[in-house]
């Protein structure tokens, strides 16, 4: 297990499709692993995982565990929401640059402020009733004793 795992008894608001190829990612996530692919030819690391290399088009890709740590590049707080997220608004989403030099967009479980831009981020897995999602937390807001506890819906 590489990244913290949180549990939620709710279902995911929107469900990602799982393909033959991406099953490895979603299965890994439910075990606390944040996986993606890199190109065996040119080394390009990409997120989300792809069965080909977007840089050189090679089809020999391999999987790699991401450490799940990075920096917050930017964020916004949505006050308007699509139907299934209406009861969660306002909610924060953001762009996270991981230490391995890949960029991820996801939900932020803590509401950032301008001062948090560039701050350390910890990726987490959330095991919902119907499957996993990934999300990000501000490392500074994680209290060691609280064990990542956060209001997850």
């Amino acid at each position: 297990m590489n990244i913290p795992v949180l549990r939620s008894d709710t279902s995911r608001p929107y469900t990602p499709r799982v393909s033959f190829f991406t099953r490895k990612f979603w299965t890994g996530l439910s075990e606390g692993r944040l996986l993606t692919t890199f190109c065996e030819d040119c080394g390009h690391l990409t997120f989300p995982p792809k069965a080909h290399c977007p840089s050189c088009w090679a089809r020999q890709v391999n999987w790699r565990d991401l450490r799940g740590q990075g920096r917050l590049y930017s964020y916004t707080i949505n006050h308007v929401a699509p139907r299934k997220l209406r009861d969660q608004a306002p909610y924060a989403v953001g762009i996270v640059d991981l230490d391995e030099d890949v960029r991820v967009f996801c939900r932020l479980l803590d509401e950032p402020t301008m001062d948090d831009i560039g701050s350390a981020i910890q990726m987490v897995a959330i095991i919902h009733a119907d499957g996993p999602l990934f999300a990000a937390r501000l490392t500074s807001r994680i209290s060691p004793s609280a064990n990542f506890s956060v209001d997850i819906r």
Partner: protein
Amino acid sequence: MPVEPPPAVARKTQKARLTQAAAASENVAIIGYAAAPVGRYQSLRDGEGLLEHELGISVLLDACAAAGIGKEDIDALIVAHPGEHTRQGYFHTFIAHQLGLKADGAVFQVLGNGMTGGNTLDQAAMQIRSGKARIALAFGAHYESAIPTQDHLDYSIRLTGDVDFQSIFGPVPVAWYAMDAVRYQHEYGVGRDISGHIAVKNRAHAALNPRAQFRKPITIEDVLGARPIVEPLGLLEVPARSDGAACLALASEEIARASGRPYVRLKSRGFHHEGVHQMSDRPGDTLAYDPLRIASKAAYGSAGVGAADMDLAQIYAPVTIVEALASEAAGFFERGKGAYAARDGETSLQGRIPINSCGGCLSRGHPPEISPLYDFVEACDQLLGRAGARQVSDARLALVVSELGKFNAALAYVLEGMQ
């Protein structure tokens, strides 16, 4: 706004020229245009409202009358894909049917996300340039104002993101731009107290535009005090929902010149797509808007002009910060300075480079698929001296920019008024 039909004499001369076979033409001209006031036309109740093709055809006929052309002159009908919320499907052939329009050039629909309207005009121009058409119409009607917001967002989150890895987190389309606003503030220390003036300036322009949806002046206090939508941006910094219809008639410059009437020349064009859907998979600068840097440089270059030669610019900017960033990428301002321009009056009608003299997406209104057609219409009004109270003095050259995604692609046209 319908334009006065030309005198019968001019029509006759033009008809004589039009009987010649189409030939590949280097220069393309806009010879007539019309657009409905942006607003709310869509109704979900019986016995109310105007249907999209009813409004659209009225505008199309106005544009043809303004150009002095009839159905037999038209070889191509290029239609902006009206989007999910327009009831009538296969809208292009439906319109051709409604008009009894037979065509030997092309009849098709164009989809290019926010750039749809730009691509529509671009493809109509291609029909003229290639000699496939003597007259090509760039047309679109877009309806969405009566669709409930949640339904609208349920659809639009699937457009502006990877549905399995991004859309699931619910980023509404303007959220992507809001993240630029946050980053801009982080990098340059410039917040919405400054960039908010872009909304105030655009509303002041719209107050002078009979085609604009929102014409009541606003203050910076109104902007800053409005309820948050995608923080840090509030209600007056993001677009409302709009319906509209617009049509431009394109011909070779030879036909335009023979008409003896003023026209607008498509002087040059630039395009670039950066191979990214919304957000790169690698860390990097999201504020450079590189596709516009490349596209505008290409357009300036092939016209033999520079940014400083533009008399005005129409920029597809659904939110305030986008106008700032795009005006930097188009070469009007240094990086980090674009947000100050509206506050300092540089982009007002009397400013150094008037931007979005029609009020832009924020105040003219934003029927997304055809907003770029409205931008071309405004540029034509300005370049032909028809902009009334919002006329930019001595307007000869205009930059018209459309984009898609988060400026992942840009289409830049330089237009020149030929009076």
